[in-house]
């Protein structure tokens, strides 16, 4: 079947969306942008293709009542099994790369020992892998680097101790290898992994319905043809895309938001390094826009930095800030100053949640200023980008919108991080139809 791909190469993450000919979303994929946009682009695209397979499975089954629930359970098992297969494959690649690093004078005396230790570390990693993908298991991140990295470091430490090897040798091998592995294009054999996953599921559950198995096999047989691809985002210039495959992220975000919420007139996107205020018309055509200028104060990176400063996870900031009843007054959105402001206030005895709530408010204040320069907020208002996932930021936004613009419908889609990629995919679909460079609605 024909598919249309939109890829949004952001400064933090790279997102891909796959559309079908009916403009329906087949799949979404996301990965960390790393230092290699080319690979990030392929990984995100592949992730979207994997997600698309599951959409096709669901379509094959249809979803109704009790049978639907069984299907969902089955598909959830299949997905966990697939992710496990994928993880094991990457683990294998990482192990081999680590082994290849064990050369040169540094390892002259200990090469065999190090190789053995690496073998042991990976054996343990493989052994605990199924538990990582067991039902109900929570993973710190969905990115291979994060999952494998934290476990490798823990296991390597004890293995090194037992083998009386310097830990930093194992650390060094890992550091060099993970970069190589991460920047390598992903392997293409998705169907092999699906086959292996299916086998795993049937082996674990003897009573797996033959019909379900057949349906999955049927859906797997559908070929996904990448008919047209459109790239957007800051990384777009580095890609070997020709001009007709590149669209401005402003246009993509405008169109993506329009597709999610057709009544959208104003879009706010807060991404890793920029904040965009966009006005669109009833067709999703951009009428006006403003972006942060000269500096990225008050963007997503600000929160990343704050999280680092507070030694917290990015996703923990919002919930803590929500506990504040009395947000601190913080006006500066300079990311560098924020660290000083934070320490200063902590030293003065202000509560962490109050400071955090104040920092969230500062970001939103800046976003509101950008929107007002883009012509203000018209009903309906759609908030997108990574920061839209942060409940404290959303709370401040709602307050400020109500104060400044009164009653306005605010749309926030849980998948809003894919807005730009979605718009890109629709441009790709239009371009494939031969419409004026994909710009003619």
């Amino acid at each position, binding site marked *: 079947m024909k598919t249309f791909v939109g890829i949004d190469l952001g400064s933090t993450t790279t997102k891909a969306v796959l559309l079908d000919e009916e403009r329906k979303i087949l799949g979404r994929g996301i990965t960390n942008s790393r230092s290699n946009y080319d690979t990030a682009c392929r990984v995100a695209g592949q992730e979207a293709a994997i997600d698309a397979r599951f959409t096709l499975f669901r379509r094959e089954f249809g979803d109704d009542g009790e049978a639907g629930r069984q299907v969902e359970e089955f598909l959830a098992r299949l997905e966990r099994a697939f992710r496990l297969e994928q993880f094991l494959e990457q683990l294998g690649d990482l192990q081999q790369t680590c082994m290849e690093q064990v050369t040169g004078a540094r390892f002259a005396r200990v090469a065999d020992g190090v190789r053995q230790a690496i073998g042991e570390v990976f054996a343990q990693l493989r052994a605990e892998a199924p538990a990582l993908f067991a039902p109900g298991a929570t993973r710190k991140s969905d990115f291979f680097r994060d999952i494998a990295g934290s476990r490798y470091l823990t296991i390597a430490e004890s293995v090194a101790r037992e083998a009386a090897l310097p830990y930093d040798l194992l650390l060094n091998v890992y550091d060099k290898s993970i970069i190589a592995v991460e920047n390598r294009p992903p392997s293409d054999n998705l169907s092999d992994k699906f086959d292996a996953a299916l086998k795993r599921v049937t082996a674990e559950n003897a009573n797996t319905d033959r019909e379900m198995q057949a349906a999955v096999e049927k859906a797997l047989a559908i070929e996904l043809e990448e008919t047209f691809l459109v790239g957007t985002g800051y990384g777009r210039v580095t890609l070997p895309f020709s001009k007709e495959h590149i669209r*401005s992220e402003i246009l993509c975000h405008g169109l993506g938001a329009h597709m999610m919420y057709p009544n959208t007139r104003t879009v706010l996107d807060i991404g890793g390094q920029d904040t965009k205020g966009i006005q669109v018309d009833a067709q999703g055509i*951009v*009428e006006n826009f403003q972006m942060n200028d*000269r500096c990225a104060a008050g963007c997503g990176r600000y929160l990343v930095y704050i999280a680092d400063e507070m030694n917290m996870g990015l996703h923990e900031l919002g919930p803590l800030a929500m506990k504040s009843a009395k947000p601190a007054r913080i006006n500066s959105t300079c990311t560098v100053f924020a660290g000083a402001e934070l320490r200063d206030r902590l030293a003065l005895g202000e509560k962490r949640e109050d400071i955090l709530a104040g920092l969230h408010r500062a970001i939103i204040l800046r976003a509101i200023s950008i929107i007002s320069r883009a012509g203000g907020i018209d009903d309906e208002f759609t908030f997108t980008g990574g920061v839209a996932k942060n409940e404290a930021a959303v709370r401040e936004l709602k307050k400020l919108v109500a104060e400044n613009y009164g009653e306005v419908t605010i749309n926030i889609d849980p998948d809003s991080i894919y807005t730009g990629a979605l718009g890109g995919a629709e441009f790709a679909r239009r371009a494939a139809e031969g419409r004026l460079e994909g710009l*003619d*609605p």
Partner: protein
Amino acid sequence: MKITISPKAVAKDVLKDASMKKQKEMMAEHFDRLADAGHTGAKVASTFVPGNLNELIMCFDLVNNLPEVNAIQSGMRRQSGAYVMEAEKAGHSEDVCTYVKSDIGMMAKGNIGPNGRKLPSPDVLLLSYTGCFTFMKWFELLREQFKCETIFLQTPYMADGTVTPNMVAYMVKQLKEDVIPKLERVSGVKFDIDRLREYLKKSAQAEDDLVYILQSARNKPSPIDAYFGGIYYIGPIFGAFRGTDDAIDYYRFLRQEVDQRIAAGLGPVTPDGPMEKEKYRLVVEGPPNYTNFRQFWKMFYEEGAVVVASSYTKVGGTYDFGFRHDPSRPLETLAEYCLGVYTNRSLPMRIDMLAAYVEEYEADGLLINSIKSCNSFSAGQLLIMREVEKRTGKPAAFIETDLVDPRYFSAANVKNRLESYFQMVEQKRGGAAKGVAA
């Protein structure tokens, strides 16, 4: 993150048309004249581009030195960054106009001009335009430094959009009672009004050709870029050449060149050669960025965008609404010239002018390049943008850079916005076409 555009990239084999070469020669000649002033004994008047009274200055055999032009030259030659920092070291804050800081820094570092030779100290500072308050403060600093004669010709602001006889009379009185006597004293040359008339006659002649050239952008495709190319075109007339035979020759020559391009149906010449296809016609408000001038220009011509009219090419005189220097009313015409420059026009006048340009030049929209370190002219630009958008129905966009401070040029950001704008124009065209079809 890797961005393929490198701000330090040096373009090879830059293509220049003959008029551009001629212009460069004239400018080089002028800088030599300034550098030679020490030996020739010529006296030097420093003055600003808006409201510069070159004809009057020449009446006293004074050589015209323009600090903003020096700052622009420093920007183009990638010297201004160091100058700006030098001025900051001397105590000028980050928010101060970067023309001022580049100038102050250049003097602190030996006052070396673009030809690599030392520029002379001014014998007189002639401030003939007051719409930019910073100019006054700038000269205050220079007066402190050079302890020379300072002349302050007050130009009333065109707040109501009209020049009244009182305004002209007020300025003529200042010219007669203050400006001319002081210039006589500094130069030791007696004022001769017939000599002034002669220069004014020559000014008007060159002005006719300048208007013809700038208005040639009404053609499709436009044979010129009225912003990036326009900056070269205004150099002689906004500087030390207005009222000279050189200026007459240059604009006659340029006009012929433009005529040839029109006849051949050619677009403007860019540093990478003749422009291929005109895809977007823009009106631009605000000065360009000079530290990354070529890179900035490239972001336009690579996308097929041509600037067909700009307000910046009117800062040293607005001629396209009919004003010409008039030798029959020599002092009055100088006053009217100062009053009419773009920067002395009120916000509503600027809106009228830009909206008229969008219509008259059949532009796709208005682009504003807002200058970080210029508070007086950045104020109100968003209002201008919205109003022009409303009146013309054409999309507008806003970018931000700086004059000569390289720290405020973020190439990826500017390019991102420009590309978005061009695609927005295209998308709206598509939308409009569909609307018509429906």
